[in-house]
């Protein structure tokens, strides 16, 4: 097989190679290298560690099962850290399919740290409207979410006592897949009400939030599964994301190799046509 004939390679062979490069490391438990936390994930972790115990934190899980592989590990690790630090958590989701994931995260972390729903945390559920919800929360959180995810009036929920708007929120922890998400929280809430915020985002959207991090609008940033793995290591609970990093490494090398091979094949075919 010469480089020129590679141009006619059936893409299904590439699909098979990608599949195997992900399956084999997971199946045979490869360990290529340990995960090293970065400054951005340390910023995320430290922002929560530095808060006084018992502070009220808004945990917004703005993602759905489509990006759960990246966002769910961050969300769970954040809930674990918040509960270990005895923070009062007000959770919500701005994606329709987000509330069950938020429920699951709070249930798992709540069980590990013996936290009680309604007393230590609440899941306000989903509200349609995207950034409008954030803006309305700035006026009144109880009027925006009159009931929680189970239909219970927020007036009856102990953890919501005294919570009117963002003035009572000490930190926003946002786990986001895109729109609505980190950008809208920064624009509508951080810029207006100056509430500190940290964000865990999908890798696709991570590059666009670096300016917010550098400008001080975000205090920490987790980007993709790699960011989630770094954070899991810091929280002391390596889990889903950490497990996936070895397969991630091999897949990245393969795709880089494919770029080189594709260009060599193209260059080879151009030379052949030139003769």
């Amino acid at each position, binding site marked *: 097989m010469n480089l020129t004939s590679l141009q006619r390679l059936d893409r299904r062979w590439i699909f098979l190679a990608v599949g195997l490069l992900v399956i084999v490391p997971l199946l045979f438990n490869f360990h290529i290298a340990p995960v090293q936390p970065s400054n951005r994930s340390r910023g995320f972790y430290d922002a929560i560690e530095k808060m006084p115990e018992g502070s009220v934190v808004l945990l917004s899980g703005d993602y759905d099962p489509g990006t759960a592989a990246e966002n769910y590990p961050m969300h769970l690790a954040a809930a674990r850290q918040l509960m270990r630090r005895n923070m009062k958590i007000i959770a919500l989701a701005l994606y329709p399919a987000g509330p069950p994931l938020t429920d699951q995260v709070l249930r798992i972390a709540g069980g590990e740290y013996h936290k009680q729903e309604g007393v230590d945390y609440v899941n306000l559920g989903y509200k349609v409207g995207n950034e409008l919800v954030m803006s309305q929360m700035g006026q009144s959180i109880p009027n925006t979410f009159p009931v929680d995810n189970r239909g219970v009036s927020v007036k009856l929920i102990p953890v919501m006592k005294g919570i009117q708007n963002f003035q009572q929120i000490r930190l926003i922890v946002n786990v986001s897949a895109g729109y609505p998400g980190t950008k809208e929280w920064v*624009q509508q809430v951080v810029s207006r009400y100056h509430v500190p915020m940290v964000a865990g985002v999908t*890798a696709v959207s991570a590059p666009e939030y670096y300016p917010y991090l550098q400008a001080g609008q975000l205090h920490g940033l987790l980007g993709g599964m790699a960011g989630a793995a770094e954070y899991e290591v810091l929280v002391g609970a390596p889990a889903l994301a950490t497990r996936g990093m070895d397969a991630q490494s091999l897949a990245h090398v393969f795709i880089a190799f494919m770029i080189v091979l594709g260009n060599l094949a193209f260059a080879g075919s151009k030379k052949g046509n030139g003769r």
Partner: protein
Amino acid sequence: MSLHPSHDIGIWIAALLTLGIFSFLYRDNPVYKFCEHLFVGVSAGYYVVLTMISSVYPNLFQPMFGSFAKDYHWLLVIPLILGIMLFSRFFPRGDWLSRWPIAFVLGVYPALRITGFGQGDFVEQIHGTILPLWVPGSIGTSIGNILLVVGLVSTLIFFFFSKEHKGALGGTARLGIYFLMVSFGASYGYTVMARVSLLIGRVMFLLDDWLGALRF
């Protein structure tokens, strides 16, 4: 390697649907089409149930029918009427009525975005760029700050199309292109990471939750 398949019928259905969608990688086929259509139907049903129960009912019907005279709740008749007007789209002669609620939403959201983008993206980002170009004792930080400012200015100049990119303006715009290419390359690298991560998530479900084959 030993297998411990799940006994949960839900996990088996989920796994078979996952494999059905993956079958598209070989070629388009009736199994994939079945899964795709089922996905669209279930998603749409899920969205409408969630929207009605989590948003429309507690923010409209409950206050309106529960405490009509209190706190101006009677005014909620207006968004109710606007919401119903949306359905005039199904009637060719009356579909002009649906423009009123759309117009209302189109007044509210742009206003929110003007202030949000203005404060969050415009003012704060310029504020973040006002950096010292010489930091005593830290040549690395100084070079970084200079590059940040030069990169931003050259990128903005590239997007200025009111004057032809010639001479000094053209040279600066070209520099802006190089910064943009680095940015696009970084975005590409992150996009690769994102896509692969999502596949890893599905494979973990199949190998761990379904087949019980993973050892950790």
